[in-house]
């Protein structure tokens, strides 16, 4: 429809505009963990339904003029007054609502991250037909009419592992007449940890054959020679039994196990030949799988070595390590607790 340069101009303008908006928001609606909605952070504009209503009012007004209908003037003015009054009512429906970012649950990349938000109201105010949503996320509807507060989850699709900083949360309402939309864009500085997407795959060792669940002593490692198995795609060429190949016994791979028998180290090198993200995904799958079995497991990836252990906390450590691999800027800041973060005060 548009030529290439036009499109890039449009993009440039929209980019410039959105950066300006973001900057303005950052300055005027700064990041906080608790926000009470008030005059300065609520915006309000008519909806498309509101414009339809205005069109009808105009039609009535013009008819009133042309037929000289005093009462039709009255009707048009009543509609105008309703429209204006509706600004106040819609605004009021958000005003004094307190939104508190509680935090996000850990999630695997590709799933929807769930951020928990606590809505609180003043005793004499009710907030109906609220909509909460992240840009590109799903709408969560909420009504705060009975209890003093309400926990709601707002979902946001995730794409890649790491720390996901929640974008500004849109809190909006069209109540009571749907003619106006009042909204606020809140940066509640919520974060959540996104584990890599687990990708199922066979473990390139004999471990899977010998049965992890039986508490077998064999664990893939590099210390002792354990036996041979058929070559699978992705096996390191270093481990190929070249002598056996030369004897015409087919392509076999030498298997090694650690001397420490009851422990199992997941190793970066196990998925040789894949790129880093693919390796992390597979490692993630195996962490989950091993966590369900009855073995101690550890992790050895470049820069991070976690000695074997078990339990939820241990699992979370491993998964976080995978999530944050080479994203060191976040490691320090992240609170490494596996469960939902509790309320602050």
């Amino acid at each position, binding site marked *: 429809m548009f030529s290439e340069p036009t499109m890039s101009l449009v993009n440039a303008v929209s980019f410039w505009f959105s950066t300006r908006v973001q900057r303005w928001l950052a300055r005027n609606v700064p990041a*906080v*963990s608790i926000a009470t909605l*008030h005059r300065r952070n609520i915006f309000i504009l008519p909806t*498309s*339904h509101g414009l*339809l*209503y205005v*069109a*009808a*009012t105009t*039609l*009535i007004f*013009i*008819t*009133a*003029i*042309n*037929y*000289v*209908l*005093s*009462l*039709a*003037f*009255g*009707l048009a*003015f*009543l*509609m*105008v*007054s*309703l429209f*204006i*009054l*509706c600004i*106040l*009512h819609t605004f*009021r429906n958000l*005003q*004094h609502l307190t939104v508190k970012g509680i*935090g996000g649950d850990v999630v695997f990349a590709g799933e929807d991250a769930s951020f928990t938000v606590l809505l609180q109201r*003043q005793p*004499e*105010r009710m907030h*109906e*037909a609220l909509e909460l949503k992240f840009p590109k996320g799903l709408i969560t509807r909420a*009504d705060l*009419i009975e209890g003093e507060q309400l926990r709601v989850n707002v979902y946001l699709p995730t794409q890649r592992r790491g720390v996901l900083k929640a974008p500004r949360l849109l809190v909006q309402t*069209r*109540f*009571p*007449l*749907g*003619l106006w939309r009042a909204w606020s864009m809140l940066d509640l500085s919520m974060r959540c940890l996104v584990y890599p997407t687990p990708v199922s795959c066979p473990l390139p060792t004999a471990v899977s054959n010998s049965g992890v669940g039986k508490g077998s002593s064999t664990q893939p490692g590099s210390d002792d020679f354990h036996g041979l198995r058929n070559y699978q795609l992705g096996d390191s060429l270093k481990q190929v039994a070249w002598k056996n190949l030369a004897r015409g016994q087919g392509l076999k791979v030498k298997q090694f196990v650690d001397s420490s028998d009851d422990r199992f180290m997941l190793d970066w090198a196990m998925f040789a030949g894949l790129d880093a993200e693919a390796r992390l995904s597979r490692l993630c799958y195996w962490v989950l799988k091993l966590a369900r079995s009855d073995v101690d497991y550890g992790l050895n990836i470049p820069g991070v070595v976690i000695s074997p252990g078990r339990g939820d906390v241990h699992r979370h450590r491993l998964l976080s390590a995978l999530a944050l691999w080479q994203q060191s800027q976040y490691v320090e800041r992240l*609170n490494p*607790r596996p469960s939902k*973060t*509790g309320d*602050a*005060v």
Partner: protein
Amino acid sequence: MDVNYQIPRLALLWVLAALLLVILPGMLRLPPLILLLVLGCMGWRLLIFSGRANYPGKLVKALIVFTALPLTVLQFRSQGVGLDAAVCLLILGVVFKLLEMQYKRDIVIVIVLAYVLTMIGFIYSQTIPSGVHALLAVAVITGALVSLNRDNARNNFRDNSRLAAQLVLQSVPLTLALFILVPRIAPLWTMPLPVPSNKTGVTDEMTPGDISSLGRSAELAFRVSFDGEAPSHDRLYWRGLVLDFFDGRTWRRGGSALLDYGMIRRYPSEYRGVRQGEPVDYDVIMEPTQQTWVYGMQLAEVTTGEIVQDRNYSLHSATPITQRLRYQLRSWSAFQTDLELPRALRSRALQMPDEDSNTRSALLARELRAASTDDRDYVARVLRHYREQPFFYTLNPPLLGEASIDEFLFQTREGFCEHYAGSFVYLMRAVGIPARVVVGYHGGEYNPFEDYTMVYQYNAHAWAEVWFEGEGWVRFDPTGAVAPERISQGVEAVFANQPGFMEDSGFSMMRFRDTQWLNTLRLRLDAIDYAWNRWVVSYDQDLQLEFLEDVFGEKARSSLLWALGLSTALIFSIAAFFLLRGGQRQLRDPVTRSYLALAVDLAVMGLPRRRGEGPLDYCARVSAERPELAAAMQTVTRLYVQLCYGEQGVGSEELRQEFRVTLQTLRLRVLSRARRAGLVAVSAFSRPQ
């Protein structure tokens, strides 16, 4: 658009109720077939709602539309493409939309059209009941919008109607301000008008029996309010049309009405008449007649309103009066008109029927004239003839044949005012005195509650004007010669007990005028209706200015927009104050606030409280990092936890005091340390968020 959107079930009921309410008053105007179709569609929608029917398929929809359209055209063919047909199509459009509405946008369109349909009702009727109906309709439509936008436990009948009523009532003050202050604009273009009703009042023809038939009607013709005192009853001649063409049976307007009308603007001022005496100002609100002529007292000058005067001093509106019309006049009690009678008018005032069979009357006229000294004396003799011969004034005169004047004057001698006026003018013309019949109303009933006079159809009257050299046109009422009380007290006094009087009005409150309290009630109700019409329905540019001048003085015109802006802003601010006030209370108690302030101070020293870190954990960390603060920190934390969560701690003033003191000391220490370390400027003491 949300494809899986489900219209809230209750919202649908609200919309149906609103539509029914809006269409209700117009239902009788719809042709029966169309009405059937409309109700059928609404019923179908109800069935869909209750799950007993499906949405119509494409074929069915097409079928409905292609039967409905020709049907409508057929029904309204005789009336042409008028307003009724347009309204019918609009209603059909809305109910068809009702059948296929599934998305939120569809339902909003239906709701918005319901507002428009509410307005349509006003084209037909602007009475108090229709105003109340419209207000109710707006409330229900608003309720439908509320129900549509609410999806919780409060989406029930009670809460929705309460909120809708609240919204509408809160809008009333602003509505009133806008109604009074928004400048009224003249119509932008002319619009097709509703099909006329058959109410006409006095017509431009007078055959014996015409006016007496109006005596059977107690319908209101117009209402008049005088500035100052009302003239006495015998002077209340509401002059309508001049009928100067007689064909032997019927009086009509001579010349062409168009000519009279077209000449209006070109009169030299001497034709406007000589005005004498004290003028009286008054204000008329006329009921619709579908005719163009209106009524006023001779000699009238139009002060406001779209009214013009023709060559015969009759008053006309530019367009047929299809709605109540308000205009203001100034009349002079003493006047002289047409001191010089132009030849054309003179011959019209002397015209006699071509085939005149009223020979006896002509003979009588000549006899009387021969006995008189001059024209004035002749008139007096004719009037004396009516008075002395056995003439009767009756509402039920016998029917007259071909020679109507002869039959009346010599045989029946019973007649209503048209008989007397007609025969009187005939007798004048028979001897060459210019004369003409005037039709209009006479008298009226005074309503003390709003200080105005009501003129009814039964007040219809006919009288005569005779032209004398040097005097111009002079009014004579031969009816007064027969029934003087008709002129002094009114037709009600004469005919109260005569059969036929107000007969066509059915069960009218007018029949109970002798019962004191019922009569008072009737007058009061009419007073309310009058005030409504005068101040609401006929509120226009002139009335607006008049009203504003009363309030703001001379500068009203220039200050209108200011007044509009200011009052709108004021009302909006008041509403905002009441709706948005309060609530800005601090969410946290003072204890928590000061504890958080401490955390902020500590953050400056590099010990921020982490997200989700409880007070005890935080205390442990601070103690470990800054052993010198440990003791104080632990006390503060212990007190804080006690105050917030402890059983006896909450609300204990002693603990609170202790907490305040320790906390204050601790904060001072923290701050001084931070300052010494150069971490904070003296004033940089941020509040906790």
